[in-house]
């Protein structure tokens, strides 16, 4: 049971990470990156590491996303044509 839970959470994280890399919109990419942090919180809790889970919940999904969003306010919004 716990192995299946770990497997599905990893699949969700990998999907969200691919979306964050391949997305053309930077704001969308940052929001999808928040999903990677959210899945990491679930996995750290399953791995019996509540301290790391609390840190990742505060930093990976909270302050890191805020810093990214405040940062892309000052650089240009749209993705350059590659």
């Amino acid at each position, binding site marked *: 049971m716990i192995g299946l839970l770990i497997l599905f959470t990893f699949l969700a994280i990998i999907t969200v990470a691919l979306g964050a890399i391949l997305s053309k919109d930077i704001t969308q990419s940052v929001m999808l990156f928040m999903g990677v942090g959210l899945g990491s919180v679930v996995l750290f809790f399953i791995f019996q590491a509540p*301290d790391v889970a*609390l*840190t990742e919940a*505060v930093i990976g999904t*909270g*302050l890191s996303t805020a*810093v990214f969003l405040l*940062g892309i306010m000052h650089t240009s919004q749209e993705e350059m044509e590659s």
Partner: protein
Amino acid sequence: MNLKKVLPLKHILLSILSSALLLSVLGLLMQVKTNLYKNVGDIFLNLNMQTATANAVTSVVTFFRGIDTVGEVTVLFLATSGIALMLSDTQRTCEKVVKQESFILNVGSRLLLSVIVLFGVYIIIHGHLSPGGGFQGGVVIATAFLLLFLANPNMSLSHSILTLGESLSGVAYVLVALIGLFKMNILLGNFLPHPIGEIGELVSGGIIPVIYILVGIKVGSEMSVIVEYFSKEDYYKEVCDA
């Protein structure tokens, strides 16, 4: 619909390179027996009863590996100095314009500020009993100040108080380590009384809660400064454009 325009040749080659590297790394890692590294952790877990701390991670961070935490706090300080060097506005010529602020957002954020700061302080001072500690609680306090800056762009923190708290907590950390060196003959020696019977109570563990509170003050002030620089930057830009 040209495939070459949607997915250029360079991207295909780089994805093939990434997959090849992934397969080679997996081929190496699959041969490793994975439960070889339990020895150090077992020693620390056996010694952990003597520190009278309920949370073993806290005692590893502040006591067994306390020197690493000093170095980590130094790296944090250097990164904050770099951000202040990059984003400080010493050469701006435009004058400050008072920006319109929403009354409801202002009052609401001030109400929430006290609750969030209380939660952060709770996480810090219960670091040796439950999950949490100085790093997490300091970042929670910084998110409270982020809320304040988002609601009220005219707000500014007092940098003298932040500098004082940050440097005093850093100096106090080194002083605690040196007192342990003189009294117990090891750096970061636990010179306060820490009877094993008091495990699980709020005042227990000797110097371990003291060190985590100092780390909490340091991390909280540094993260607040980072958040302030990032949100003030936008404010100055808008004012200069107008």
